[in-house]
């Protein structure tokens, strides 16, 4: 699938800024509301954010390292790969607006960690980092720069697909927190 590089990045920046706006609003909520869980199995707002923080711990340094080492300069077309496109679309809501339920890997399950207002600030710092990376990504080739993924070192994704997957994944879980 061929996409225009500048449109892909502009879209991801727009989505990321929207998430930033929503979560900045969490600073005004009290801790009770941030920790609210309708039942033991579902996640609170803070747990949704911490789940994303745990992904950020892996993906942000990984993406930054690959961008800094990228050999090819930017190209106006980004070709999405088969696997990358599959992962990115997996994160998207269905046609009727519902999301497909999935089980998170155990090491990315936030349910046992200590969470407080610092979780929100940590998330917002990661979002600032992400926005810097999306700007840096404008200078490199999104198709031929490869990145590792968190579940397997064997599989490499195209940088453009990793960025799409990563941003859609954030949107997915922020929307999950918003339904509470």
């Amino acid at each position: 699938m061929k996409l225009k590089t500048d449109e892909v990045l502009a879209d991801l920046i727009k989505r990321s800024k929207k998430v930033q706006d929503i979560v900045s609003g969490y600073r005004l909520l009290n801790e009770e509301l941030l920790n609210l869980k309708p039942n033991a199995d579902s996640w609170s707002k803070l747990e949704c954010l911490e789940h994303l923080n745990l992904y950020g711990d892996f993906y942000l340094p990984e993406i930054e390292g690959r961008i800094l080492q990228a050999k090819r300069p930017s190209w106006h077309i980004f070709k999405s790969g088969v696997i990358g496109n599959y992962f990115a679309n997996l994160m998207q809501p269905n046609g009727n607006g519902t999301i497909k339920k999935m089980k998170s890997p155990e090491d990315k399950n936030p349910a046992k960690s200590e969470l407080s207002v610092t979780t929100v600030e940590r998330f917002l710092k990661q979002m600032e980092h992400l926005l810097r990376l999306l700007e840096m990504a404008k200078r490199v080739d999104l198709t031929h720069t490869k990145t590792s993924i968190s579940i397997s070192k064997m599989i490499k994704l195209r940088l453009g697909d990793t960025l799409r997957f990563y941003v859609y994944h954030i949107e997915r879980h922020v929307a999950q927190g918003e339904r509470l």
Partner: protein
Amino acid sequence: MEDTLLRELLTDSRMLTLPKNQFLVTEGVVDQHIYYIESGAVRVFLQTEFEELTIRFGYKDSFITSLSSFINGTSSEFYIQAIRGTQVRAISKQQFETAINTDIRYLQLYNAILEGLVIQQLEREVDLLTASPSERLQRVLKRSPRLFQEIPSKYIASYLRMTPETLSRIRKIND
């Protein structure tokens, strides 16, 4: 003399009781108090995008503050959190100013407190520039022998910029 003045100042100040894990100061808030710890212990930390970095501890009978916020009136970059049930006296900058205006000797007290805080900053800076992890631990233990009785080791490890595993290994070898 400074002790008597300090006692007077403390008597006039607000006493705060913090349960374990309660925040005294949070990031983004302007806080112009110096806290005197009557009982318990607190830690000052910086929340980065990846981890919490513990940069200072406050024990019984010592002072703690978010220094840049106190001096500049800017919003705090740091969190101050109770490590266990803790009681602190909050002396506001305003209270210092009023006291100094009524009795110039309070200026000496104020200077002594600030000097103490500056010296702590410098000690920490040298700690961080000390390459050897075991030497870093020794330096801290020398000035705070009660460290391990007062503070959980996960925070000590963060303060010393090492993993909890490394800290535990160093302690075993040096015992």
